[in-house]
């Protein structure tokens, strides 16, 4: 067994360095994964605090707490921090921790670059957050930063925002290159592509999305930079440019981006459901093909965010059809999860609860996504709270739910300790109820005609906004409990078995708990790989 070899290896004294420098200099995939996860969690709390500010201002009609300009800074920074600071780094952290373990590799393929791609992040995050303290305030043009609001009419701090986006992009691209290199070059020699677990598959495909999309974003912000400072007119009609071109470029990045934030979660759910259904994953190969199809489609549907920009009708028809097609592979994934559960022997430990809530609530977000894809109906939904409800269902109860499910599922492997199960279940129900109280009424607000990104609203929207804000405060508080549960597990948790879930399969569970600092210096054999397959 590889785990015994690893233990022998540890006896030679190749453990982690002592002290703080360990974290600065580390090239170990487990350390870097941990750094990513804590960074993402800190950003989640900061971005969440901004959301609390937004909901506090919207609790009642009228302006009570903030000026409109500052309110716009809150919504902009909330979006940017959650997307680029919380969700994306959390998934890269999970990839760092899990991919080498799942493919039987000793570490990531490019460990020094791995260190660098993490350590860019705190600086990029600090630059982004520092804009709050600059004259003119933080960026206030929404996370989509449409020109010319983000060019001619933007505060001076926008140039810092552009630099931060560039850094975040470097980090993501390096992370993606590292993951592709690790999966394709470092997986155990006897592991075939169609042996790979789905988290590895979804991340491999996500990496290609990142490499395709992030440079486009870099191009967009570079054009912004030259428009702002060097007299170009890419997005200024007065100089022969076109503000709508900005949106085309942005969404050519932006649509793949939303799949970057959900595909790894699909992978996670495909690990958790078979474990707690005690049954192999249904339709493994169709899951792989569906993921690849979603990734392909994600590049050719971008203008469904732009139905109202004045596109020709032929363009609108094309983007409507292409968008509707995405429902097919996404549906296949949901059907496969349900079929995995069917006639299983289900138990409901915390990771399973999060996974089931993911399937239910992500599908609701998928339904509203289908509705938004119908171009004529989008006329009424576009830029209203219906859209806000939609993307919070797919990003909070989709992406974030997947991340939290993964944390509970693999925490015993990472820490070697078990979290407090009753408390974790209580936390789950608290978060589940409050997140729905927060976001479900926003569907009604949107359909009744409340636009998004407004600091104050007419009185007919008062009641649902009040309910939504109360839900949001409760949801925000639940994260303090989550913090406690995780810290309590690390400090006081009872020792966990190497395989804490009775029918969990995967190479990571063959390793001893607590996990050694270096693992798989001898790759697993084909027999070991097949024995740990979740789909045969």
């Amino acid at each position: 067994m590889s785990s015994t070899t690893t233990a022998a290896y540890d006896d030679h004294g190749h453990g982690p360095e002592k002290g703080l420098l360990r974290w600065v200099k580390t090239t170990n995939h487990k350390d870097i994964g941990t750094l990513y996860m804590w960074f993402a969690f800190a950003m989640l709390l900061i971005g969440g605090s901004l959301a609390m500010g937004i909901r506090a201002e919207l609790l009642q009609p009228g302006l009570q707490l903030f000026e409109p300009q500052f309110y716009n800074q809150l919504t902009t920074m909330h979006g940017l921090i959650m997307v680029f600071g919380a969700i994306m780094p959390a998934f890269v952290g999970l990839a760092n921790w899990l991919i080498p373990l799942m493919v039987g590799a000793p570490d990531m393929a490019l460990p020094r670059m791995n260190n660098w791609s993490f350590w860019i992040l705190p600086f990029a995050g600090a630059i982004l957050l520092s804009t709050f303290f600059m004259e003119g305030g933080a960026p206030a043009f929404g996370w989509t930063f449409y020109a010319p609001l983000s060019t001619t009419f933007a505060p001076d701090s926008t140039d810092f925002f552009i630099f931060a986006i560039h850094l975040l992009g470097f980090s993501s691209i390096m992370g993606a290159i590292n993951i592709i290199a690790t999966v394709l070059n470092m997986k155990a020699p006897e592991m075939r592509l169609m042996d790979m677990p789905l988290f590895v598959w979804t991340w491999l495909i996500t990496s290609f999305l990142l490499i395709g999309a992030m440079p486009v974003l870099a191009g967009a912000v570079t054009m912004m930079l030259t428009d702002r400072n060097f007299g170009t007119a890419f997005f200024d009609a007065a100089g022969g440019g076109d503000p709508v071109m900005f949106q085309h470029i942005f969404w050519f990045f932006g649509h793949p981006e939303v799949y970057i934030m959900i595909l790894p979660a699909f992978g996670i759910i495909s690990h958790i459901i078979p474990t707690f259904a005690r049954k192999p994953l249904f339709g493994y190969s169709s899951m792989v093909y569906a993921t690849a199809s979603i990734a392909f489609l994600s590049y050719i549907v971008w203008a469904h965010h732009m139905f109202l920009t004045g596109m020709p009708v032929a363009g609108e028809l094309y983007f409507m059809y292409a968008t509707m097609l995405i429902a097919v592979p996404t549906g296949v994934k949901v059907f496969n999860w349900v079929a995995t559960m069917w006639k299983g022997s289900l138990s409901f430990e915390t990771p399973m609860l999060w996974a089931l809530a993911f399937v239910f609530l992500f599908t609701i977000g998928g339904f509203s996504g289908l509705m938004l894809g119908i171009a004529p109906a989008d006329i009424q939904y576009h830029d209203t709270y219906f859209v806000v409800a939609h993307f919070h269902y797919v990003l909070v109860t989709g992406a974030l739910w997947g991340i939290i499910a993964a944390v509970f599922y693999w925490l015993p492997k990472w820490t070697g300790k078990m979290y407090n199960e009753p408390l974790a279940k209580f936390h789950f129900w608290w978060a589940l109820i409050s997140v729905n109280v927060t976001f479900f009424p926003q569907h009604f607000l949107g359909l009744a005609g409340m636009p998004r990104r407004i600091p104050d609203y007419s009185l007919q929207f008062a009641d649902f906004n009040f309910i939504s804000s109360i839900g949001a405060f409760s949801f925000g508080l639940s994260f303090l409990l989550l913090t406690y549960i995780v810290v309590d597990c690390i400090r006081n948790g009872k020792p966990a078995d190497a395989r804490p879930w009775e029918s969990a399969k995967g190479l990571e569970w063959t390793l001893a708990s607590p996990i050694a600092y270096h693992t798989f210096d001898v790759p697993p054999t084909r027999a070991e790989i097949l024995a740990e397959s979740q789909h045969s």
Partner: protein
Amino acid sequence: MKLLFTLTSAFVALLSSKSVLAEYTLNMTKGVTDISNDIWNLHMMVFWVCVAIGVVVFGAMFYSIIAHRKSKGAKAAHFHESTTVEFLWTGIPILILIAMAIPASKTLIDIEVLDKADMTIKVTGVRWKWQYDYPEEGISFASNLAQSSMDVIKGTPEDREAVHKEGGYLREVDKRLVVPVDTTIRFLITSNDVIHNWWVPAFGLKQDANPGFINDAWAKPNIIGTYRGQCAELCGKGHGFMPIVVDVVSKADYAEWVKSMQAEKVAELASATQVWTEADLVAKGETVYNANCSGCHQKDGTGIPGVFPAMIGSEVANGPAAYQLNLVINGMGGMPSFKMLSDSDIAAVITYERRSFGNNGSVVQPSDVTSAR
């Protein structure tokens, strides 16, 4: 448990004590054009398709959660592949999508293709108001958030309710758009500065206003009444305060309105040829300033450091008048052009800026504006 009960009853009490205007609108409203009805029908159709799919998928999922649980002694089966099933649940959704795409395409083409309009209105988004031009009738005016709403944004909830009863808090304007019923109206939509979006839900009409480009859209309202909407694209700090109010009136009432607007314009032109006193200019200028300039430069002239310049001690307002005339008429950088204002309005507002806020610039007459244009 007791705590939970107390919290719940407090919550219910809070909800029920709120305004008598309480509205729990759950769904989209149908609107007053054929297009808005078509959109509503599409919306309901897709909604019910989603409900049906949801019932099947979630039904299977919850059945499995209830019936196939380990605690009830369920033994796990081992099946994990079926090409037939995969084909079925790829094929059936494609058929459902095609069935939805057919009516959606038809409505989309109806919305986008317009052969002939009875009249044209140009809509221009300007931070943060709407400028309306009737090119054939020679009518032009700007439509701002009503002062009554502005006054109570930071007021008490009772103040806002009082304003809301008289038209709608944040949903009332100083000058409404007036259009005739049963008439096909082509809207030419553009912007002076950033991207705005002109949205009247009851017309099923929402179209981006892009600076430097003109989008067109159309509506044919069938029912006389007042319809409200607001800007639907983030355009800066006044984005939430850019309402749209359209009065759909009978054709006779519309003709009356056109006549009165044209008479008003004649009077306005006559006043621009006269020489005004400084006091008259400053008094009129204050009104124009509060409606057009205070959004950025602030009512008290302090501006926003780093974003919008202050009026107090401004080099422009204390410098040569010609420079300020050019700036207001043609705009520069973040400052939009205000050439749509009348000569007397521009003269008044410039004089107000030059003679108030402790400034000491010269007086500007309407005739100066006429020659500066």
